[in-house]
């Protein structure tokens, strides 16, 4: 297993290197951060001084390898704005983001899988049409709009739930629902198509012909065979959500990585942006490795290849 894991690890390293490089280039391609930090009033002398201080006067290649070296040592640099370690900043927001992502992915998986399974079992019937419409809706409603509507109706109008910021569990509900709609819709569609496909397989007819009941056929034969693409998608969505839900956190003033990203961009805190991208990429790659391992447990045919 270890030996066959090696190519995957190599792939992961290449992915990370690409992400890290793109972060480095983007931070420098979008204008001079020092000039924007100091504003128009700064003199050329001041600007030069700060540039030298940050090491930005060195050749790009030198900066790049310096940056890579720091990442390898686990040093994500110091924030230009907060003057503390970027790693500490990320760590302080991690719990909030993780909580929101976990809640959203749980809602998304439960609702998405239920909806998709019902749709597949009643393909072409009314249940299916309703489920497909809901999924389409979930995929096309912009999260910021849905978030604002929920705040206006549920929080401000009905006063059932708080409108923003973290705190008790009730603070979590609206942002989690908002954040879950897109993954829910994607998971529902994937579940539907995957189950529909498996239901056509001769081994399903064969299981029914042996006198197995619907529940057994669905749970033991259909679910396990339809699970792989759904698990993969859930993993991808988890990776996306974990690295910060920028819009939803912004709308609900949720103190997570998404809000930190918004602030970092607003203040052109390019070391923090780089740190966030590196963190997001590492999270994403790790989640993917976990997905590969889970899939190999679910499907004995893949076991040999991992």
């Amino acid at each position: 297993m270890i030996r066959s894991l090696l190519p995957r690890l190599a792939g992961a390293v290449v992915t990370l290197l690409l992400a890290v490089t793109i972060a480095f280039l983007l931070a420098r391609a979008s204008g001079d951060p020092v000039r924007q930090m100091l504003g128009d009033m700064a003199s050329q002398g001041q600007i030069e001084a700060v540039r030298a201080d940050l090491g930005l006067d060195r050749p790009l290649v030198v900066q790049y390898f310096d940056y890579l070296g720091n990442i390898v040592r686990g040093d994500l640099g110091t924030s230009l704005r907060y003057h503390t370690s970027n790693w500490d900043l990320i760590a302080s927001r991690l719990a909030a983001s993780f909580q929101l992502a976990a809640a959203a992915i749980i809602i998304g998986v439960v609702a998405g899988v239920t909806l998709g399974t019902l749709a597949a079992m009643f393909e072409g019937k009314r249940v299916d049409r309703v489920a497909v419409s809901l999924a389409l809706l979930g995929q096309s409603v912009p999260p910021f709009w849905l978030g604002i509507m929920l705040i206006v109706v549920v929080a401000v109008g009905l006063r059932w739930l708080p409108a923003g910021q973290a705190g008790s569990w009730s603070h979590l509900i609206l942002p989690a629902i908002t954040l879950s709609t897109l993954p829910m819709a994607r998971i529902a569609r994937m579940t539907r198509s995957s189950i529909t496909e498996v239901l056509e397989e001769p081994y399903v007819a064969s299981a029914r012909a042996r006198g197995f009941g619907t529940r057994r056929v669905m749970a033991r034969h259909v679910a396990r065979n339809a699970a792989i693409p759904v698990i993969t998608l859930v993993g991808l969505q988890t990776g996306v959500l974990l690295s910060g839900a920028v819009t939803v956190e912004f709308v609900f003033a949720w103190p997570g990585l998404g809000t930190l990203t918004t602030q970092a961009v607003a203040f052109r805190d390019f070391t923090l942006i780089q740190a966030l991208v590196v963190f997001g990429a590492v999270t994403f790659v790790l989640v993917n490795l976990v997905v590969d391992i889970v899939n190999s447990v679910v499907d004995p045919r893949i076991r040999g290849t991992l």
Partner: protein
Amino acid sequence: MSVARPVIAEIAIGVHLVNPELVVEVHDLRVEFGGSRLRGHEPVVAVDGVSFSIAAGEIVGLVGESGSGKSTTAMAVARLIPLSSGTVKLGGRDISNLTQKQMRQARSDIQLIFQDPHGALDPRQSVASSLREVRRVHTDRTNWITDAELMASVGLSSDILPRLPHEISGGQAQRVCIAQSLILRPRVLIADEPTSALDVSVQAHVLELLSRLRDEYGIAVLLISHDLSVVRAVCDRVHVMQLGVVVESGETESVLGTPQHSYTKQLVRSLPGARGSDARNSFPSVGFS
């Protein structure tokens, strides 16, 4: 394969050995697909008034070109798709109006073998685990035989048991499918093109297995095929289907030897290995090991 006995010779005896008890009686079976009066769709009539019967220990063939309704007939007789009208009797008992739950019980009596043996096996389930599942669902029906005995009776070694479907050959997979049916001691086995996905060299062995099970357990077999040489090799009687209707039936030799209906004549002319003794020669390994 250990002993390969001449199939053809066996059948000649088989005809006379059959128990006259009728296991399957299909009367005026009709199956329609996709009609919707609301949306003004005309239904496709896939099976249009088919009647036939099979006695214990008899192998009855169902032939006809693609789309003539053979598979639909099989699925409807096994109640895997709804019948539009007509009756199906299993051992004298009308099963056409059983509820799904009652039907699940009756399923151990009527088993199916499909064309694509790998497709008919859950890719994630080992042979042993699939047998265990059948045993769990039909506890009382399955304890007459051990897994090892079962494997031996379908001509497989017990080494197969821990394997996953992708780790066995097509011929082995088809034997596993037959074992999954046999473990239930069915009274009827419906085999829908059981050999057409298999290597020619393996086809004869699977047919030979089916006719051996018929001999040993008195199972009634409905063998669906578009290959007339297959039908000629193992079937006692044959029904010829065209566009959802049985156009000709009778003893295999007479139907294929002196076809009466123009469609049968055309079928016999057009399909390979159908005529006379050529058919026997077209099965390379039957009986000559």
